[in-house]
């Protein structure tokens, strides 16, 4: 499926692989298959009636009219666009160029609209577009912060499987602190500290004691689950009012921006943590690719020996990266107890850390792409609510399953072989 043009070299095998240019037909193939499947669905199970998209939200200054369109027509138009995108992908293959990241992203959005239009056709309920987007953004916050932290850690050469544990301990610390101080900001800071604490333990074992990073990550997750559940039963439940009842961050509307039709209410009437996410994503990107710190960090992750030779302190750089990453993941943990709900519950992160890990790899260890992947997962978790609203024709379990199936397809086809930083997961021992 993959055409590889290798430049032969007398050096070692790994040297060869670094100079391979890969033109992959997989993306084009997957786009074609998915388009065909969607068309098949529309053919086999046509649905009558209009689909209604509610464009406005309560309190808009400038309110767009709601849109009612024949569902099947919209769906077919979307499939046609998808087919065009698939054709573009094939043309790129013929021209031996790699497909840009935008094509699969647009493809995903188009297919989503096609699917929603099909599912919502004939339903008396309408799709509140702003709420769909806004809810997705909100739900993606912990995954996004988790993924950003994961990207930083792995770029420095430390695989962080403990994202789940960092999120959970962050949520736990935020719940207690915010309850005691009546201040969600204090909770946020406590979550950051908790994330850094887990990162410190991870660093101690993987950087100082050179234990396998995957092992430590997995075990730290279990440890945090055990600790938080233990203290939850022993301490939080008996003193729930004093220790486990937080004031949440209220949504804040940004003047002007929040008045943009459709997108304004979705993106700019959100919790403070969402705005923090808007700032953090470009900040992490800038720090990684445009600062001396980022250059050093990436050098340490790709070739620690070379970095050491030019005088970069490898272990210290890794510790710093891990701690910063831990703090960022901790912010995501705060989401659970000072934004989403106002109390801590056992294992409340429910695997979001692993989804974040998937977003890191899906996003090819790049902060922007990882953030987009996190957003995709946010959409996925939000989709079910939306479809149950309009009375979807498919059992709800399949709706809930869909995002994970899409990810499976995407990882297999659209992203292809992801390449981790070269020294990712390898402890550095100075000679």
């Amino acid at each position, binding site marked *: 499926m993959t055409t590889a043009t290798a430049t032969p070299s007398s050096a*070692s095998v790994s040297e060869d692989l670094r100079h391979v240019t890969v033109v992959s037909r997989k993306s084009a193939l997957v786009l074609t298959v998915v388009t065909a499947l969607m068309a098949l669905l529309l053919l086999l199970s046509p649905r009558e009636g209009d689909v209604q998209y509610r464009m406005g939200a309560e309190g808009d200054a400038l309110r767009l009219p709601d849109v009612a369109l024949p569902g099947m027509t919209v769906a077919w138009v979307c499939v046609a666009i998808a087919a065009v995108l698939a054709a573009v992908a094939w043309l790129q293959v013929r021209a031996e160029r790699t497909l840009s990241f935008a094509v699969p992203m647009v493809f995903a959005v188009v297919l989503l609209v096609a699917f929603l239009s099909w599912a919502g056709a004939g339903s008396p309920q309408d799709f509140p577009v702003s709420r769909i987007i806004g809810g997705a953004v909100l739900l993606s916050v912990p995954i996004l912060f988790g993924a950003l932290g994961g990207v930083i850690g792995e770029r420095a050469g430390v695989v962080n499987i403990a994202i789940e544990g960092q999120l959970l301990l962050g949520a736990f610390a935020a719940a207690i602190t915010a309850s005691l101080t009546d201040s969600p900001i204090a909770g946020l800071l406590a979550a950051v500290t908790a994330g850094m604490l887990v990162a410190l333990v991870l660093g101690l074992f993987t950087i100082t004691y050179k234990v396998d990073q995957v092992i430590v990550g997995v075990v730290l997750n279990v440890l945090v689950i055990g600790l938080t559940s233990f203290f939850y039963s*022993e301490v939080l439940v008996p003193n729930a009012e004093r220790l486990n009842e937080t004031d949440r961050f209220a949504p804040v509307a940004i003047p002007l921006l929040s008045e943009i039709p459709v997108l304004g209410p979705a993106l700019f009437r959100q919790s403070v943590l969402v705005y923090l996410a808007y700032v953090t994503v470009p900040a992490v990107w800038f720090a990684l690719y445009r600062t001396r710190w980022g250059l050093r960090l990436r050098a340490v992750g790709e*070739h620690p*020996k070379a970095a050491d030779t030019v005088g970069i302190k490898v272990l210290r750089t890794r510790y710093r990266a891990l701690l910063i990453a831990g703090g960022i993941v901790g912010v995501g943990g705060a989401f659970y107890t000072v934004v989403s709900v106002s109390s801590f519950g056992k294992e409340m992160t429910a695997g979001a850390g692993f989804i974040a890990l998937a977003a890191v790899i899906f996003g090819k260890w790049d902060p922007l792409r990882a953030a987009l992947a996190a957003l995709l997962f946010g959409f996925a978790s939000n989709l079910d609510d939306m479809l149950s609203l309009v009375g979807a024709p498919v059992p709800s379990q399949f709706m809930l*399953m869909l995002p994970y199936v899409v*990810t499976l397809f995407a990882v297999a086809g659209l992203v292809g072989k992801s390449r981790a930083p070269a020294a990712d997961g*390898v*402890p550095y021992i100075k000679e």
Partner: protein
Amino acid sequence: MSEDRQLGGDEVARPQHVGEEDAGARQAVLQADRTGDAEGRVVPDPDAGRWHDALRRVTQGSWAVSVGAVVLAVLAGSVLIAVTDEAVQEASGYFFSRPSDTLAAVGSAVGSAYAALFRGAVWNFQADDLAGAIRPLMNSLNFATPLIGAGLGVALAFRAGLFNIGGRGQMLVAAAAAGWVGFGMELPVVLHLLVAMAAGIAAGAVWAGIAGLLKAATGAHEVITTIMLNYIAFYLVSWMLATPGLLQAPGSSNPKTPPMQDTAVLPDLFGPRYNVHWGLVFALVAVAFVWWLLNRSRLGFTFRAVGENPAAARVAGIDVPRTTVSVMLVAGGLLGLAGATQVLGTVTTGFSSDIDAGIGFDAITVALLGRSSPIGVLFAAILFGAFKAGGSVMQASENVPIEIVVVVQSLIVLFIAAPPLVRAVFRLPQPGERPARKPRSRSKQKEVAA
């Protein structure tokens, strides 16, 4: 863990020396070439007497570290129990006037908690007769049964350099398949059970095989695909459980299956007094099978070769993608065994979508503690089974939340994974000046390279 990652990392930072050097630790480490044992520092030392050597092995070998790790973890658990105990908190209020009160309270809290753990896991010293006294041990074995199969599945994947987090999905699919055969088909006595078990194993293998196939064909990272397959399996099984005619019990609206037919239920191993069933025998057979597979078979050799160095394996003529698929098939089959014994032995009255009971994730810790060797996994699974059995008794009688067991378990694995730390705490000698290395590891290295 991907091929690339290894290839890239290979040249970059090959450690000259890593603290733990014995063969057991190398198995635990995912990629043996990272531990750097190819330097061939074998210096024959004729002066070292046998006893001297034995003593050195005891203090430097892995089991001294393991004991130290268990001691440390239990100590940490004691601290947690003491800190959250009400009597201790009360007594510590006047610690400086009467410190003995605090110490006594700590002693009684910790002592009674661990006594309850022991009573629930190993030996019930409050029972009237021997049969009652060993009941906890039987409970532990019952809890250990699915952990053995599941742990083997994760460990086998580890040995081939793959990280199988998909235990949950593989177990769920296997439980669905085995359960469907178990309650839905009419078959003669022994055959029914065997068909149901085979269905479960096959379903688990297929589910994991999807991840293997995706990795082999497209390079999709198995960490992502197995996690995604977990969710897909969960919703798939949930849907089947909620759909009459598939898995849902007739005439019921609960997402639960009807009970298994008697012909498909795994019989009790030691009579009806104990809940240990024949699943344990299946699990033990699986241990023997995996041992044989890894150490004596051609296929297992390719597994280990790919796990230790895929590039070398490929050069040696091993079909790496094909091996990846085979590994995942066998690993999924082992997790499928665990899922099947759950529904045919442990919960025979019909199951719902929580039948996996977190075993798929516990299996990862079991595999790590067992250092990915079949025998190690067996003992790790029994230890964790004992913790589970004892933990529930401790929760019931002493009001100590069962999660303390999770904390102690994870700390054990964490400490075992960091031998230098444990050695430093207990002042055990650090390895390094050990004169002779086991020749086995050298020959293995040669085999892989050949």
